[in-house]
């Protein structure tokens, strides 16, 4: 992770460490430190901020691309600015996530990127940081530990949408939607789509 805000980087690292399959090998406060670490030790993924003293995010990305390292790059930024997003796409960044996006969005995006099924889309970036429209379902969220994204997908399932349709609406790959649905099934303890739709109706999702 590269971020000049030490407290943010540390806090974010703590959140990501909760995932059993994630391992954080280093936290750096500027591009240069991150670059030299990546050159020496192995890492699968770089999560970088845009604004850093000395070598900034773009500088770091350009340098990594120039050296043709295999490392995947996710930009974690404060800027909900389409120009900056486009520039990142142009530089070959794998994903762009806003800092105020829900944490499970970042976790999910990391998995998407590692499994090469992430689709870059600016509306999707903005959506990740929007208020949770399912806040009124808080009791269910606590009971079943459903994320905002899972509620969203559950709602479309209840409306009778197919995985492909949901993927198109939410700018996700079909594979990602399938993964989400698998998780929802496990979390709600259901085994068929009919049961799933009934559960959604019970929650008042329509």
């Amino acid at each position, binding site marked *: 992770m590269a971020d000049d805000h030490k407290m943010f980087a540390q*806090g974010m690292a703590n959140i990501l460490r909760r995932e059993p399959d994630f391992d954080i090998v280093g936290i750096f406060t500027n591009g240069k430190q991150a670059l030299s670490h990546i050159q020496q030790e192995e890492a699968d993924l770089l999560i970088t901020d845009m604004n850093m003293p000395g070598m900034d995010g773009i500088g770091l990305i350009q340098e990594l691309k120039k050296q043709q390292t295999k490392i995947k790059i996710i930009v974690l930024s404060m800027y909900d600015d389409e120009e900056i997003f486009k520039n990142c796409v142009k530089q070959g960044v794998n994903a762009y996530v806003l800092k105020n996006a829900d944490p499970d969005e970042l976790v999910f995006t990391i998995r998407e990127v590692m499994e090469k099924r992430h689709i870059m889309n600016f509306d999707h970036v903005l959506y990740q940081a929007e208020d949770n429209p399912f806040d009124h379902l808080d009791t269910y969220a606590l009971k079943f530990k459903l994320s905002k994204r899972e509620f969203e997908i559950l709602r479309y399932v209840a409306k009778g949408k197919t995985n492909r349709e949901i993927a198109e609406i939410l700018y996700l790959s079909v594979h990602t939607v399938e993964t989400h649905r698998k998780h929802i099934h496990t979390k709600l303890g259901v085994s068929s789509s009919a049961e799933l739709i009934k559960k959604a109706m019970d929650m008042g999702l329509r």
Partner: protein
Amino acid sequence: MESNSIELFIVLLSGIFLMFIMSGFIVAMVLIHRQRQVKSRHRVELMKADYEKTILNVEKEIREETLQYVSQELHDNIGQLLSLTKLVLNNPEPSSVLEGKKLINQIIKEVRSLSKSINRDYIKDLKFEDFLKDELDKVERSGFCKTELTQKGTVMDIPDENKKLILIRLVQECLNNAIKHASPTWIKIHLEHDGPHLGLTITDDGVGFDTNTHPKGLGLINLQSRINAIDGNIYILSEPQKGTQIKMSVMV
């Protein structure tokens, strides 16, 4: 007789002629003197207007710098802390709630100190050395590079507010240059008081530049004209890859 009167006539005539020349000369002298006076008064006025313009510009730039700092702090520091709090509170475990509370306390502290930095009437309340300390702290806190402030002689404040304003802006400009172009690992400021004489040295170990090829860079001309406005001197020593040292001296 006749030749006498002719001689007298010639003498008289040349006398009158001389008198005319003399008076013409005097009139011309007076006129030239007046003109010079007007010109020099005009020049003094121009200089005064120039000085006032410098002060105004300096004030404006300091204000802009403050606004820039505030906007940056809101975005990079407070905004990020708020985002982090949101992320932390997303997890309903009690330990996360505790961490969230800690973060909110931190945010309250940051907002308070930020509001102080906007509110402070820079010139009236701030001692010059405190200003230097604050600026270097800001650089260090941003994680840009290490800084150091050293002093020699009995510290006294700068009584002339305008001089202080200009010096403050000069220091800001030098630091901005170092931050933008030099990528140093440290910046040092040395302040020297010797009676009414104030010496200020800003040194960095950054990339430096060739003073022969960059003598007319806009930033450097600006520094020069501003130090001139307060009758001070500035020397810029730099070589590529050997850092930069800017020495200023002024009577306060």
